[in-house]
């Protein structure tokens, strides 16, 4: 398979087939990343589409010869943050001063989230992924990028917009928490 650099270059030169190949190459990893971040496949798919729409609009920012993956992952990261910010704003008080009512499942989580999770999260039945889901977002992201997506600490830091030192700390805390959740020694 052609690498991301070549595909991105051809895509910028006006070849739509290269965009489709780039999508096929990167979308699985991006979707995995976004699913780990959002814990919801529907939201992750939506953010994936938003990410590629942004890539398309900003493709002129590509530097020929550069690996576009960190840039595209950073766009996914930013898209996730913006979505989370919007969701938080949506959860603010209503005009009557009440918190908006959210239907809840027996587990206590919102019904729509619970339904979506039950429907799609087959992979999360595995204990490790379930434990990963329960980590705070920065730690979850650090573990995903450095362990599941195989990125270096420097690349992961670049994607998350933080320092390599902070990324190391997040990843370490994530590993410790995972070990505790999975019943291992601290």
């Amino acid at each position, binding site marked *: 398979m052609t690498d991301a650099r070549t595909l991105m270059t051809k895509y910028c030169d006006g070849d739509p087939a290269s965009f489709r190949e780039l*999508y096929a190459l990167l979308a699985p990893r991006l979707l995995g990343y976004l699913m780990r971040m959002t814990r919801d496949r529907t939201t992750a798919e939506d953010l994936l589409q938003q990410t590629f729409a942004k890539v398309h609009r900003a493709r002129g920012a590509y*530097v020929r010869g550069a690996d576009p993956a960190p840039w595209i992952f950073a766009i996914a990261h930013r898209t996730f943050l913006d979505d989370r910010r919007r969701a938080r704003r949506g959860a603010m008080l209503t005009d009557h001063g009440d918190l908006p009512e959210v239907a809840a499942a027996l587990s206590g989580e919102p019904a729509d989230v619970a339904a979506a999770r039950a429907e799609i999260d087959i992979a999360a039945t595995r204990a490790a992924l379930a434990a990963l889901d329960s980590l705070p977002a920065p730690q979850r992201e650090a573990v995903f990028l450095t362990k599941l997506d195989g990125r270096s600490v420097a690349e992961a830091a670049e994607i998350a917009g933080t320092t390599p030192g902070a990324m190391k700390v997040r990843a370490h805390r994530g590993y410790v928490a995972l070990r505790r959740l999975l019943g291992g020694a601290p």
Partner: protein
Amino acid sequence: MTIPPIAAELEQELARLSPVTTRRPVRQALLAGAVSLVYAAIVLAVIAVRRELADLPRLWLVLYLGAWLAGFAVPVWFALVPRPGGMLPRWRLAGAIAAVSAVGFVVAGLLVPRSAAASLHLGLDYAHQCLSLGLVTAIVPVVLGTLLLRGAAPVGSRVTAAALGAAGGSLGGFVLHLHCPIADGIHVGLVHGAVVAVAALLAAALVPRALRP
């Protein structure tokens, strides 16, 4: 893992896909530097060079002007030129250099003022004019840097913007240093030096959205 198909809107745009000019960072940095310097020279030509410039200590003047230019060029370089093989701005480095220059020019102005016989000693008088002039000079580097970097900084955009602002502010300080005859340390430090910090803060507040895809 099943991947969703490409969204219909995006497919429509792909159907009429045309080639785009991609970013050439080194060329862009040189362009931003050259255009900004020409603009600074025009500003200086309009407002005139300080009358006692030739009487100022030569070494001090050269070092100070060199520092202003470095405060402009280095953050612009790191904001616009990614590391080899990458495409994200080196925003941490640019931001750190911008922070050092924002503090450094205030401290240097306060600690190492030099004057000539014809220099003025008016303290903070005309502070508003100097600040305005410095910020007007900063506009072109900031706007140009923003245009060249648009869409390239999904993360670190606020720090990148601040670095561009500080770079523009340093160019403003450079122009002020050649124009303003007020030689008090408090004026050079707190007014000329402050241009860097104010320009960085304004850019950090106004620019980031334009840098994100």
